[in-house]
């Protein structure tokens, strides 16, 4: 054992058992796996990836290139970064990680913080910067990789004001903890520095990891420096380690990394290792310092049969040693600076790249800009912190008090001399041993020479040719050596060779940590309708349409999809059937110019539509291709209701806003989404009238393509007489709250529920195209045979100009046709390609005329049929559909298969049937089903509840003088009472989820990107929470109301419950 009897930051009273390659071992609290392995005398911790050479522990930090182990379920981590824990099972690796299938036990989430000053690094400079900024009153976040603040003070024995330096760090740490606007994140590694002062950091927490998203006005980089090695023969032996690491193991971990040491140093810091090793009882066999007159160089190493270091060649002299501590000099850790797009320059005195020109609102302080001395780093940190606070608008009060707090302690370090300019040693060819530049990727100086020999001049080429710098440490230990060696090989200077680009992340980040809580059901919001619960209960099979879950069919007993669809279609054609049509986009369009606007957006006319009438409309993109379709109804002289396809609802609303705001601002027209406000049931079939009458007794006779407001189930609703099937059909609309009751009543009255599949068959029998199925962005209305809907006399509509371009007017374009297979039972395969005439044998390389867009079995026709987009054919032509099912001969027909004369539209004559009293609809709130789980989750820290059934209006145009202002001319008014003209009722569009309690903000900041600091977020905001668009309102100190779309309510409720579930048992301090 090489554990020292005393000293270090470990608790020798407690034993922490663990295993390495199955061997039971123990360490102490405060150990890393690496220090524990050294203490246990384990010298070989793995083998190298290419050559399989034994490798030992090389560093004491996250830059470790050798000691890569499998630790518990982690596939590959640096032993130097693993805090030892009881029961840890670690295994050596050969430079490659091993993934296993076990479920991930860690909780990974995210957090968003905003601050005035972000300080990265908790060493002398970073602590000083955080203190100076914090004392000035700035909101400060300090992130530090280590479990304890202090940085290099943890590893060194430097004295500040005559006392151990760590005391100073502890004192500053205590002071920071006392400042209310300072948040210290320990065990947190800043891994990426992105545009607009956006920094990402990974916090290792009990039982998990949190990915912090930090937005700072100013950033102070205090990331320290990495010691570098040199390339000499046998420099990869277990027993060769960085001098700073040797020092850290002795001072911090109370471990002697060897018994007899040679120290090879190009810089004065090496002498600290000499002193500390000697004081720890390690014999110093020799000190090699090229700067000394006649100073020796290490020219090689010797090893035993296991490859362990046994000695060191100093020129012709051989010295026995089991430890070689190497210091080739220091490299400021400019990784984050470089990621921020700052430019580095090569400092000739330091022989290292240092920050040069900043690109963002940041500055570097201390060792990461080459100020290596402890007290100069502290002074630099104070200056950087004060400056950052000031630039963020916090003027520190001058005076004695502040001067006292920010006093730079006196340090016992001697002034340091410049390092030796040395990258390699012993490469005169005397030794056959390899000299390694990159330890993880096994890249040697000879490999670099070979790269230069191929004619490569760019260090980027050499990196790729040799893989140098692409290993686990991303060049932290190898980069400088590679540059130095290349400079020598190319006869230029390191400054000319330049460094390779530093790319995020600074240290590797687990995929799962990047995913956070966006896993499983929360990976993408599931949107559901008011009727969803009943659909699930009825055993519906769902399909995804955008984020929506829509019932595809409702199998009964052991029905296959085809059987179920045939039954559902038959019901719609011969009796009465019902579909949940709530997912169709609905946009309330108001304003004096609403009709004019629609005339410009749709290919056909809407300004002439009579009030109370409905019209089918088609809209194109500017290049003339079909974009969306749907029925639009004129509710009043200055008000329309547009419906869109389910998948395009958001895109269409954005499209309308774009044209209004950017092209036709002079038009008086406003858009309000009411998609979630209205629950919609399509009642379809010759006997539909009976069902509708029973639900809406007051309903007058309703001509085809008209609409009326009426009480449905005793609730104010809207009834539209429109049909997508050719049958008598009504669309009943009631506010979301009553949707489930309406659906239940419709089924109660005998309507057969049908899904999207039957709906597709019914419309195809009528030859109605579906946007996105018959069309694919290359199809014009004319191609669909819908020239009848393209107004000739309108001055313009979006897409009109493109319908006269050479390609849209050429003959021989594909057009919509019908298909009847010659065998009426033959499957018409969607996606099958059509070729001319009958085909015998292999049809390969026969020209394709088009493809099958829809194919079904029809109950009404008693056969299969299809629709296709195809060129150069006309009705009666024979074609062959070539698909997975082989070649199927078909005949081209006009695409209307059923009731071409539209005789079915009015259904059966009314027979007066007493359908009994169907009662009055019972209201159900969007998150009502969560009431119980919200209560269970109740805790002193946080409380969740739904505030349901609020009356809400959206107001656009003139200021209502009340409510939440959401946009320049957009308000949300909550509450009963009189409403103004043009207000749109949206009570069912959203529900309110309330989060309250001292932990409420901690919950929200795990998913909300805006600044929730109580001094900043005092009112409300339209923003994102998790993946749901919300309106967030702060109604009390710790009370937040979330207005969420009803269709997103279930998703957000689950997300909030999961967030509460993830709260630490003890309520942590709150965000600055």
């Amino acid at each position: 054992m090489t554990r020292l009897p005393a000293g270090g930051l470990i608790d020798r009273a407690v034993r922490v058992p663990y295993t390495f390659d199955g061997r039971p071992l123990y360490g102490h609290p405060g150990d890393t796996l690496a220090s524990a392995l050294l203490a246990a005398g384990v010298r070989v911790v793995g083998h190298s990836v290419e050559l399989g050479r034994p490798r030992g522990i090389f560093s004491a930090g996250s830059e470790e290139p050798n000691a890569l182990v499998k630790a518990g379920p982690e596939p590959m981590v640096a032993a130097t970064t693993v805090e030892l824990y009881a029961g840890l099972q670690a295994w050596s690796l050969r430079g490659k990680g091993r993934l296993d299938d076990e479920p991930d036990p860690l909780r990974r989430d995210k957090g968003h913080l905003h601050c005035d000053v972000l300080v990265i690094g908790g060493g002398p400079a970073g602590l000083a910067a955080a203190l100076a900024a914090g004392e000035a009153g700035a909101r400060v976040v300090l992130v530090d990789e280590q479990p304890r603040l202090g940085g290099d003070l943890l590893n060194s024995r430097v004295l500040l004001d005559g006392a151990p330096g760590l005391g100073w760090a502890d004192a500053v740490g205590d002071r920071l903890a006392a400042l209310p606007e300072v948040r210290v994140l320990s065990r947190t590694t800043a891994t990426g520095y992105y545009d607009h002062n956006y920094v990402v950091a990974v916090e290792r927490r009990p039982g998990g990891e949190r990915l912090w998203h930090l937005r700072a006005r100013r950033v102070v980089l205090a990331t320290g420096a990495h010691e570098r090695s040199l390339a000499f023969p046998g420099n990869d032996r277990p027993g060769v380690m960085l001098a700073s690491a040797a020092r850290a193991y002795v001072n911090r971990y109370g471990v002697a990394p060897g018994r007899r040491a040679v120290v090879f140093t190009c810089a004065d810091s090496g002498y600290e290792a000499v002193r500390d090793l000697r004081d720890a009882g390690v014999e110093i066999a020799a000190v090699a310092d090229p700067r000394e007159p006649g100073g020796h160089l290490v020219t090689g190493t010797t090893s035993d049969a296991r490859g362990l270091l046994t000695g060191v060649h100093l020129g012709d002299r051989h010295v026995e040693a089991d430890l070689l501590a190497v210091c080739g000099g220091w490299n400021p850790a400019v990784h984050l600076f470089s990621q921020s797009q700052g430019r580095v320059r090569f400092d000739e005195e330091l022989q290292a790249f240092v920050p040069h020109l900043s690109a963002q609102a940041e500055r570097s302080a201390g060792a990461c800009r080459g100020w290596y001395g402890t007290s100069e780093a502290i002074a630099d940190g104070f200056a950087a912190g004060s400056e950052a606070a000031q630039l963020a608008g916090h003027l520190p009060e001058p005076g004695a008090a502040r001067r006292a707090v920010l006093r730079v302690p006196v340090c016992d370090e001697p002034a340091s001399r410049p390092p030796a300019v040395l990258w390699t040693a012993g490469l005169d060819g005397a030794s056959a041993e390899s000299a390694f530049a990159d330890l993880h990727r096994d890249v040697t100086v000879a490999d670099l020479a070979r790269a230069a020999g191929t004619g490569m001049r760019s260090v980027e080429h050499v990196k790729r040719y040799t893989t140098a710098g692409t290993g686990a440490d991303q060049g932290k230990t190898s980069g400088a050596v590679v540059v130095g060696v290349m400079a020598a090989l190319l006869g230029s200077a390191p400054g000319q060779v330049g460094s390779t680009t530093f790319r995020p992340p600074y240290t590797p980040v687990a995929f799962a940590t990047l995913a956070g809580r966006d896993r499983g059901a929360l990976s993408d919001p599931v949107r559901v309708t008011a009727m969803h619960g009943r659909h699930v209960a009825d055993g519906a099979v769902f399909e995804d349409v955008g984020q929506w879950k829509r019932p595809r069919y409702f199998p009964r007993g052991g029905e296959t999809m085809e059987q179920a669809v045939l039954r559902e279609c038959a019901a719609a054609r011969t009796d009465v059937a019902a579909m949940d049509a709530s997912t169709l986009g609905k946009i309330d369009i108001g304003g004096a110019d609403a009709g004019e606007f629609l005339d410009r957006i749709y290919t056909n006319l809407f300004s002439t539509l009579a009030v109370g009438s409905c019209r089918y409309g088609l809209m194109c993109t500017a290049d003339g291709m079909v974009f969306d379709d749907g029925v639009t109804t004129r509710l009043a002289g200055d008000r329309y209701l547009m419906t869109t396809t389910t998948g395009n609802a958001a895109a269409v609303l954005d499209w309308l806003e774009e044209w209004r705001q950017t092209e036709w601002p002079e038009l008086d027209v406003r858009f309000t989404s009411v998609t979630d406000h209205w629950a919609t049931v399509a009642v379809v079939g010759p006997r539909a009238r009976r069902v509708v009458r029973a639900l809406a007794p007051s309903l007058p006779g309703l001509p085809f393509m008209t609409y009326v407001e009426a009480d449905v189930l005793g609730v104010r609703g809207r009834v539209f007489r429109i049909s997508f099937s050719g049958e008598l059909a009504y669309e009943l609309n009631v506010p979301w709250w009553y949707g489930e009751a309406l659906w239940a009543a419709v089924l109660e009255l005998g309507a057969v529920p049908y899904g999207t599949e039957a709906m597709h068959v019914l419309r195809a029998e009528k030859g109605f195209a579906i946007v996105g199925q018959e069309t694919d962005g290359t199809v014009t209305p004319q191609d669909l045979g819908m020239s009848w809907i393209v107004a000739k006399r309108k001055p313009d509509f979006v897409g009109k100009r493109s319908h006269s371009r050479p390609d849209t007017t050429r003959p021989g374009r594909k057009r919509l046709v019908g298909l009847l297979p010659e065998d009426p039972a033959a499957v018409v395969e969607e996606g099958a390609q059509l070729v001319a005439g009958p085909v015998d044998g292999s049809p390969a390389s026969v020209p394709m005329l088009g493809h099958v867009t829809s194919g079904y079995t029809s109950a009404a026709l008693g056969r299969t049929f299809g629709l296709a987009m195809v060129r150069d054919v006309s009705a009666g032509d024979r074609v062959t559909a070539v698909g997975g099912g082989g070649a199927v001969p078909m005949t081209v027909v006009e695409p209307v298969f059923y009731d071409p004369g539209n005789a079915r539209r009015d259904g059966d004559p009314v027979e007066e049937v007493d359908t009994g009293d169907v009662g009055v609809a019972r209201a159900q709130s969007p998150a009502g089903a969560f009431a119980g789980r919200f209560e269970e989750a109740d805790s002193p820290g946080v409380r969740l509840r739904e505030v349901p059934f609020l009356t809400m209006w959206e107001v656009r145009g003139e200021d209502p003088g009340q409510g939440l202002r959401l946009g320049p001319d957009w308000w949300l008014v909550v509450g009963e009472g009189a409403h103004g003209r043009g207000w749109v009722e949206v009570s069912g569009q959203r529900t309110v989820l309330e989060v309250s309690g001292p932990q409420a903000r901690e919950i929200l900041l795990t998913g909300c990107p805006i600044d929730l600091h109580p001094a900043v977020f005092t009112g409300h905001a339209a923003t994102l929470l998790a993946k749901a668009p919300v309106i967030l309102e702060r109604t009390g100190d710790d009370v937040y109301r979330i207005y969420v779309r009803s269709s997103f309510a279930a998703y957000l409720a689950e997300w909030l419950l999961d967030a509460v579930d993830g709260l630490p048992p003890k309520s942590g301090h709150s965000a600055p």
Partner: protein
Amino acid sequence: MTHPDFLWHTPDPKPAYDVVIVGGGGHGLATAYYLAKNHGITNVAVLEKGWLAGGNMARNTTIIRSNYLWDESAALYEHSLRLWEGLGDDLDYDLRFSQRGVLNLAHNQHDVREGRRRVNANRLNGVDAEWLDPDEVKRFCPIVNVSDRARHPVLGATLQRRGGIAKHDHVAWALARKADAYGVDLLQNTEVTGFEITKGRGTAVRTSRGRVAAGTIALAAAGHTSVLAAKAGIRLPLQSHPLQALVSELLEPVLDCVVMSNAVHVYVSQADKGELVMGAGVDAYNSYGQRGAFHVVEAQMAAALELFPIFARARVLRTWAGIVDVTPDASPIIGRTPVENLFINAGWGTGGFKATPGSGWVYAHTLAHGTPHPLAEPFALDRFRTGALIDEHGAAAVAH
């Protein structure tokens, strides 16, 4: 891997060349190689403002396939794939070309319809393609999660068995080595600062290393094409966007095919050294910054873990971005420009790597004859005027 001992020279520019290729990436190098090999034109310079193949060639996810929807695209990419199948021998270099199969997953009925449509079209175009149901997907790639309870369940996939990956650097260096051997001047650190155009005819290129007269000027600068074309007074339907990618640490083998999911923006394979190589979606905004937004990577990882739960603890080692030049129809532009003697090969968007040999082949032919190669004809700039687009966006296409 043993590379050749020598790859290329570092010459000084000559005053004049028969052909000056602007852009020393994969397409530029392939064009130079085929100009020499197929057309005997060797008085050629390749101008590269940085280091050879340091742009998108060094930044892509190395996926190779030819299963495009439209006849014109399928013909061009299939020609490229056939060249890939002989390229290692042709260039006498181990390109690590591995035809391990490319899966394109379908997650909803629309994907399924479009996937089947593409498979059927591919077959009739002589492109190998199969449709797999979820069980077959599981058998082909056992680590894919095909549970029907997944948020975006796998409903099936297209498979092109001849698709795969290659080592991008090796490809670039192999082409550069052969071009250099034919006498082509590979001029690195040579930035184009302008063009000399007299009577609508390109005559010379001005560079950071002096004037270079040119019989023919050929742009092959991917994301930087708009900037160069502007120097010649040409405005093109191109927008440059960041496209991000990343690699994991080295891992023992877990994935032996290429899996793509356009719907959730996941493109992944495992390189022979062991790192997982993944591509993300294109960033929304125009940029020449060679870096993208972090949330794009977060979303990509979340999607990836739904498909590959076993990746949960794999760690991202390095992220980066290339600059892709995107056309309105997601198909390239190859051929003439309004300036006589100045040709363009651009707009490959996210799909340029797989086209490297095919693109070089047809572009070299176009330069040598002054008229487009038959396979390139449909991809002329004029299609945007007529409207005869080759629209590969439709869900039918996966650009990567």
